[in-house]
């Protein structure tokens, strides 16, 4: 699905930025994680093409990079949707019913948890604690945070983004 | 950072800026800042008190404001609370306020001529 999406992020400009980061991290001990963080920020994902460049420039086996990228949940192989909808499933939110909220959103945007809609508009995520337990249950869309979400609020919240 | 003295200097300077946030002070000066107080000129009095307290580095003195003290005709008013006792100063001006800080707060001599008792006689 996302071939075009991936191609759209592999711009020369982005690669230039990546080269700078790799250069800057030279001589630093344990440089791989900071470099990958930067790559994820620059491209919005770390697809195969980016991994390959990092591998060559940093002299780290591609398999090792792939292993690290797939291990950590912050790193992704494909870009996320325009709106990333995250519902907190930390303990405090869960006991206050955030599972029902996820189910409701799944229904509204027709995307399963962990997936991106085919048009690249929404990504639905279940996140672990974001530390706003006092406001449980909590969901975020992009940078915007919604606290003390009631099941009945969900459709109103989502309506703004549909 | 070169020495402990240098640190102590920074600390001293910074302490003045944050002392407002320590609410366990020995002396409290409360200024009546209701509409009556403000229109009678309580704001310059309040500012003079804060300035004076800061200038003299009286870290144990808190200057705060309150609503109407109830005797509007004598505004601006402020009250000094110390060791469980209260002294009420009336018809204050910025200059008189500075005088009170110097004599009463610093030296411990109540400025009787400005107190409510003297005024009501």
């Amino acid at each position, binding site marked *: 699905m996302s071939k075009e999406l991936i191609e759209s992020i592999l711009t020369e400009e982005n690669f230039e930025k990546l080269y700078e980061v790799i250069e800057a991290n030279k001589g630093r*001990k*344990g*440089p*791989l*994680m900071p470099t*990958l*963080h930067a790559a994820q920020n620059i491209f919005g994902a770390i697809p195969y093409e980016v991994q390959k460049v990092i591998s060559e420039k940093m002299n780290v086996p591609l398999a090792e990079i792939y*292993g*690290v990228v797939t*291990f*950590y*949940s*912050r790193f992704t192989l494909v870009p996320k949707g325009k709106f990333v909808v995250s519902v907190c*499933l*930390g*303990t*405090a939110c*869960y*006991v*206050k019913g955030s599972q029902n909220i996820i189910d409701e959103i799944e229904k509204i945007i027709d995307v399963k948890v962990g997936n991106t809609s085919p048009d690249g508009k929404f990504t639905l995520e279940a*996140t*672990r*604690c*974001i*530390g706003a*337990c*006092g*406001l*449980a249950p909590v969901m975020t869309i992009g940078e915007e*945070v919604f606290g003390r979400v009631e099941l009945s609020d969900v459709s109103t919240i989502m309506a703004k983004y549909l | *950072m*070169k020495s*402990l003295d240098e*640190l102590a200097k*920074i*600390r001293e*300077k*910074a*302490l*003045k*800026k*944050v002392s*407002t*946030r320590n*609410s366990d002070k020995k002396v409290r000066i409360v200024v*009546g*800042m*209701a*509409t009556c107080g*403000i229109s009678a000129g309580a704001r310059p009095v*309040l*500012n003079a008190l*804060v*300035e004076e307290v*800061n200038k003299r580095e009286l870290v144990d003195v808190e*200057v*705060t*404001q*309150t*609503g109407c003290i109830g005797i509007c005709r004598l505004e601006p008013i402020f009250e000094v609370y110390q060791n469980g006792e209260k002294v009420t100063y009336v018809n204050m001006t910025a200059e008189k306020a500075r005088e009170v800080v110097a004599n009463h707060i610093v030296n411990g001599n109540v400025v009787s001529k400005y107190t409510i008792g003297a005024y009501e006689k």
Partner: protein
Amino acid sequence: MSLVRSHVLICGGTGCTSSGSISIHEKFEECIKKFGLDKEVKVVKTGCFGLCEAGPIVVVYPEGAFYSHVKVEDIERITEEHLYKGRIVKDLLFKQALEGDVIKSVNEVQFYKKQKRVVLKNCGVINPEVIEEYIAFDGYKALGKVVTEMTQQEVVDEIKKSGLRGRGGGGFPTGLKWQFTLDAIGKEKYVACNADEGDPGAFMDRSVLEGDPHSVIEAMAIAGYAIGASKGFIYIRAEYPIAVERLEIALAQAKELGVIGDNIFSTDFSFDLEIRLGAGAFVCGEETALIESIEGRRGMPRPRPPFPANKGIFQMPTLLNNVETYANITQIILNGAEWFRSIGTEKSPGTKVFALGGKINNTGLVEIPMGMTLREVIYDIGGGIPNGKAFKAVQTGGPSGGCLTYKHLDEQITYDNLVRLGSMMGSGGMIVLDEDNCMVDVARFFLDFTVDESCGKCTPCREGTKRMLELLNKICDGKGEIEDIARLENLAVNIKDSSLCGLGQTAPNPVLSTIKNFRHEYISHIEDKKCEAGVCKALLKVTITDKCIGCTACTKVCPVDCISGSRKEMHVIDQNLCIKCGACIEKCPVNAIILK
């Protein structure tokens, strides 16, 4: 010289930021200008006040007036009434800050009164982005004292004497760890801080870093001096953007002022600190996995020994403590080990910060002396259970801990006591559950978490937790057999005994403790196919009560036509056909249809 007479402190912690404290800050600046008070009133963004439930929080000094649930629309009134005219706006105060007509300052509110703030002493008091404010409250004094007056061994001895134990979960004596690393031989040594706070429901480390980042930086420098390290790493989760930013600002200021850098306080001691971001792996909170991650690999734990004290980051001796542990260090150095021991109990001295959450009135962050009872925390500080519901259990220690019941409410909170009761201190999450929570479902929730976060290196954890989750799913789906309880217990014991790291060794705890304390709930799920709390959907039934007026509205919406009954008569649902979609419940005009 500033003439500021009043300080407006606005909570800039994650909780309050999420509920809009940034726009409140802007509005305050605007209103204060409008009233011409900008030279008299200072607006300060602070760290977490701890009472997140009441957020956004604003405290106005010198009165210590405690405003809660502040909205942008309220700011103009607070500015005009309180800051301009000096009248505290009573109806906007936190409800417990007003007793009759008496206004109580922030320190006198019940929520704070029973607390003892050591770790959080600066949170909500100083502006974390201004190093001078930290210094005003005795910041970097401990570091100065250590490097100019104490030997390395003296520092370690002081920590040992204090009896401080690791606040990250296990409760290992911190002083011993320091001694091991001091004694270890290596070309280089490292100090590391574990700020990868992954326990769902715990956020004290985040609050310390957001509210008082210098306390951790200073303590790490002290640790560096004590064990002979010149380099440190703070490993912080990327999910805490505000904390990362504050930490970066604080570190830059510390370097500029020279409290971090070369020849600190004109001594031979030099110390450099670097921030490393985690990338969303819970297991990286395990110390050896964290080390692997810093080195740039998958965060998979290493077998121990060798312990990090001997072979840690880049195979060099490494001292690794968590945020809250470090936040105690400066206080111990300044006030002495004796002072520290005077707080808490003999074997668990000091305080512990808990993140109170779940079904409790005052959710938020509380710091209490060790040895306080669960009842005091939940009822006196936490304000009890909302909506008149009954208390059922309290979960401590996150995915590694267990659930305690009302029987345990009068037990003291100490490391050893909680372990004895089948739970643990963990990093300090304390989630309160009420009658609407199903304990089997809670156990399943935690297992789901550990299955997700298991790194996959060792078989017992990778496969075992998965099997346990399958059994729990089976029970929640109404397909459980009574033997499944024994199967769960058997698996649990094996996983505990044979897993490589703490994640696996403690993963079965939520299941074991719920089986022990709430066995009847498991049995009623299995034998009666019933979920009393009404959580496990598969076990719920849609039924029509005698409130039914026979309007036939429900029969029309039912997608599987399983409702029968004629007009003006009570309707009945055919349970074999019902798919529990809930359409009839929504449609019923008299709320006669219930899910239970």
